[in-house]
């Protein structure tokens, strides 16, 4: 049995100290990483609670409940940031990605402590696959928010809708990687390929440049 709280303290302590010492933008980045890790820790508790409440077995919780809880928990720090600080678009995009990275890092560390560090290939697939999936979900949320930023109603409804889509994407990934063999390879490769495509598109088309999208053709 691994004590995730202890792992969390060990990982968070240096980041927290560094965040206290660093200047504004760097501090913000570290705080978002920490927020991602904290979300991951809290998601474990919340998923366990709902699994007990719905009397779901481990697999059902992993396939159906965990993605929903994790994506919502991952979004909460971002929601707080948006509601309290009202940041610009670029900051929102970066913060969503950083929270996702923090979440994926903590999840991978917990996986390492539970399953050992002996199988390099398996860990490579796990590390890149999970990392890519969380990053992809973070990117999807941030791209959605970037596009739907203009009006309040558009932002609110659109953000909820984007969040719903990321839950499903996460759930598909969880099911695919839970089966050993080719399924794990495909499940892990798909988010990596999609991230590659998104990077190519963003570099080529520069969709994040601070220029408003046109409202309509008409």
């Amino acid at each position: 049995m691994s004590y995730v709280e202890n792992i969390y303290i060990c990982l968070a302590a240096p980041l927290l100290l560094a965040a206290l010492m660093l200047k504004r933008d760097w501090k913000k980045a570290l705080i978002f990483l920490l927020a991602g890790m904290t979300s991951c820790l809290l998601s474990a508790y919340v998923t366990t609670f709902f699994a007990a409440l719905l009397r779901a077995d481990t697999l059902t919780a992993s396939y159906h409940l965990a993605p929903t809880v994790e994506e919502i928990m991952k979004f909460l720090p971002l929601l707080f940031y948006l509601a309290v600080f009202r940041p610009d678009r670029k900051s929102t995009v970066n913060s969503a990605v950083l929270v996702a990275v923090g979440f994926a890092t903590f999840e991978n560390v917990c996986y390492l402590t539970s399953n050992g560090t002996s199988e390099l290939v398996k860990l490579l697939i796990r590390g890149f696959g999970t990392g890519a999936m969380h990053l992809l979900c973070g990117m999807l949320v941030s791209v959605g928010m970037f596009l739907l930023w203009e009006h309040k109603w558009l932002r609110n409804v659109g953000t909820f809708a984007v969040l719903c889509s990321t839950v499903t994407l996460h759930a598909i990934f969880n099911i695919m990687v839970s089966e050993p063999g080719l399924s794990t390879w495909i499940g892990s490769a798909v988010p990596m390929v999609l991230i590659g495509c998104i990077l190519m598109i963003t570099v080529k088309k520069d969709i994040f440049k601070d220029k408003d999208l046109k409202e309509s053709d008409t």
Partner: protein
Amino acid sequence: MFETLENLLQLIILNVCAAVSLLSALKRRKRPHMLLFFFYLSYLLGDIYWQVCLFYFEETPRISVVSDLSWYAAYLFLYLLIMTEGGDKHKNGRLAACAVKAFPVLMALFYMQWGEVLSNIIYALIMGLLFSRITGVLFSKTGKTGGRRLRRLCLTAMIFCLAEYASWTSSCFWDVDALRYTYYAGDLLMTLCFPFFIAALKAAPGEADA
């Protein structure tokens, strides 16, 4: 067998539509095209999740909330698309507005005999919003008639939503053969509606594609 083929066809059409709308969105850098892409993506993810569950567990998901979330998202993106295109400028009369909102609520009450309560309430809310915008554009007598593009979009959305209702209703009577075919017909009609959203978003003659 027929169901598998139908699902496969829907997945292929959705994939193609998502790819086309993404390319179009990147080329034109316009919000409606992006929203259309997100609509396709969300619906596609819901479908893929359902099929993945069928493939790995040989049964439909035990807790269907995940795929439902994706389909809620798809309908919300469709709603946002209509609003962005100018659907917010059209309103129904008071009586028509009540009738349009009552339909999804009554249907949700009917479906609750078989399905989950919360999921049906959420669908009723989303469909209520969507129907009120669609009928506002198609049947309003405010004098502010929508552009041809908006009307085409709303007409496609109307057919799509009614086909969805036909599928849902007939799936409640799965044991009756005739109604099972109505389910397939409704689902097929929805599948065929997908490309028409892209066609509807193309600027009509006289409506400048800025």
